[in-house]
């Protein structure tokens, strides 16, 4: 009996020792809103996490965490269990992140797509996806034969509206006759509904399908119908090899690695990051050669100009649907206006649903 007790004690001590040494190690935690297998938003965040891991830093993640009370519990749990830096990767984690940050001043927090930095240990970051939309608009304007561009939109929030506007402005520039048809599906992913929306747009004459939803269903429908399409969030090329012209890729990896190393080395500072093509947070998948080498060259040039700041997605004059001037000639839209964008630009048909 006594011998067993000793053995047990030894193993408990050993375990304790392990967990204590684990606690001392630098650790990064990730909180995801969806499953890592959604092949969209969360999938790309997890690719970023893997890059951090590859850089020799230990990471953990919690997936499918609903926004709200559960989120706070999960974030708090990560902070308590010895994580030194925590990425919370959905808009709805904004308040919980700030709340937990207050109680753990020594832990660093990074919140994606939010704007609240109530404590000095909270940073925010997001990507300028609209720069990618400008490139898509250019290609769509050149490639369309029917002059109808079909756009599957998720929720009427500034990020989505910004994408529609950026795409339309760029398409108008190369083809003044284009028409943007928008279908709102009110979901981030529902493959059935997304494919129905894509089919509806194609049936009504769209020969370009664009999506601001996360599943690969729309590009598959486009492939079957023989029209052009663009992938979203990750490279969806293998789902529609003929149809996809390119995909906008969210590449969080460099940012995650950089911030994790900074936090480990003690150089981490609070900041608000909004990176785009220039920094590589928004990247483009290889261009489909079916659009012709000339157009590929054009788009590559535009991509370089957007990255260097020589070109801007929202260069004046820009008018809203009623003809009010939004951005004056020769000016570009500032970040404040972009962040709060809630009207369509001239040339987009229909109203924004409320």
């Amino acid at each position, binding site marked *: 009996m006594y011998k067993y007790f000793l053995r047990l004690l030894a193993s408990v001590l050993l375990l304790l020792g392990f967990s204590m040494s684990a606690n001392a190690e630098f650790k990064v935690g990730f909180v995801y809103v969806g499953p890592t297998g959604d092949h969209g938003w969360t999938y790309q965040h997890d690719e970023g996490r893997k890059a951090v891991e590859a850089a020799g830093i230990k990471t953990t993640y919690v997936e499918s965490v609903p926004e709200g009370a559960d989120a706070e519990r999960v974030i708090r749990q990560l902070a308590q269990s010895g994580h030194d830096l925590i990425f919370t990767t959905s808009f709805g984690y904004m308040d919980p992140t700030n709340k937990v940050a207050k109680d753990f001043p020594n832990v660093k927090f990074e919140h994606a797509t939010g704007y609240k930095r109530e404590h000095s240990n909270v940073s925010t970051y997001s990507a300028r996806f609209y720069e990618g939309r400008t490139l898509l608009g250019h290609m769509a304007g050149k490639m369309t034969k029917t002059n109808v561009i079909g756009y599957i939109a998720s929720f009427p929030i500034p990020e989505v509206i910004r994408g529609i506007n950026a795409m339309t402005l760029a398409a108008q520039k190369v083809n003044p006759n284009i028409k943007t048809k928008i279908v709102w599906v009110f979901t981030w992913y529902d493959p059935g*509904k997304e494919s129905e929306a894509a089919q509806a747009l194609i049936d009504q004459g769209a020969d370009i399908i664009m999506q601001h939803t996360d599943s690969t269903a729309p590009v598959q429908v486009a492939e079957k119908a023989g029209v052009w399409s663009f992938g979203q969030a990750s490279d969806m090329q293998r789902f529609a090899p003929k149809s996809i012209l390119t995909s906008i890729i969210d590449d969080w990896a460099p940012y995650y690695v950089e911030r994790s190393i900074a936090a480990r080395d003690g150089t981490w500072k609070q900041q608000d990051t909004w990176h785009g093509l220039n920094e590589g947070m928004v990247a483009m998948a290889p261009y489909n050669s079916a659009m012709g080498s000339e157009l590929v060259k054009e788009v590559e040039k535009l991509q370089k100009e957007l990255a260097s700041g020589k070109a801007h997605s929202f260069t004046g004059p820009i008018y809203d649907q009623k003809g009010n001037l939004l951005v004056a000639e020769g000016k570009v839209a500032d970040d404040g206006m972009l962040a709060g964008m809630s009207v369509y630009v001239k040339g987009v048909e229909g109203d924004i649903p409320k």
Partner: protein
Amino acid sequence: MNIDINFLGVLIGAIMASSVPLILAASGELITERSGVLNLGVEGMMIIGAISGFALMIITDNLFLAIIGSMLSGLLLSFIFGFLTQSLLTNHVATGLALTIFGIGLSAMIGKDFVGIPGKEFPLLFVNLKEAIPLFGPIFFGHSIVFYFAFLLPFGTNYFLKKTKIGLIVRAVGDSPVSAANQGINVLLVRYCCILYGGAMCGLGGAYLSLIYTPQWIENMTAGRGWIALALVVFATWSPLKVLVGAIIFGGITILQLHMQAMGIRIPVQFLSALPYIMTIVVLVIISRDSRKIKLNTPTSLGQIFYKEK
């Protein structure tokens, strides 16, 4: 936007294709409910069918096996429900809800390795006729075999319940299990069979989504269609042919609102998404005012636990 005749055909064809999973799941659930068992696990069985079908298609590269497998997996899941509610006498509602939650979780776990793999093309029948005949071509031709099966199923179900002896037994068990048992009918056996059949049809409905409609696997891809199917059974007042009509209406709402948006006609999307449920409530109110109408088809013992004293 001028609506030409071919566009109309394409539109109706799309509506019918979108109603297939609803018809399959609702027809299966209808038989289960007519035997007096209320299985709220439709969504769970559909999603299990979806992942099993897709996984088998990837592993075996055989679509026939995938379809059979999806039905078997739905059947297996419904067996758990049957065992709990019929043999262990648990509450139907609670067990059914648990089955849905279990199915969604289990499918996500199985599906981890199947995310991001493009599905295989499912063979479509009569594709050449689709283009050749205006209006009716896109409506009736160029669909998968499951599509045709789904549209024949309600007629078969109707015949089974009304004209066959076994159908009569199922109805007897659903209306009064005690009298049926006194007549020498093995109530448990009948109910087990009806539960398993319902599970198999739900599995097939799920597989239609992951193999034919949007050939890929994504977590939670049934996206509430199981609940619509459940509402549909009530909407149809437990009549197989009305299931067919209801499924086309419910499927049509989604497709029509997308087309209306693309045409620039604005209607609140949220209202349309809620419409199937609102319509179900309206039907419930109407039939509950006329007790004779509902009594014709409603299984009287629905959801009640049957216990045979020995």
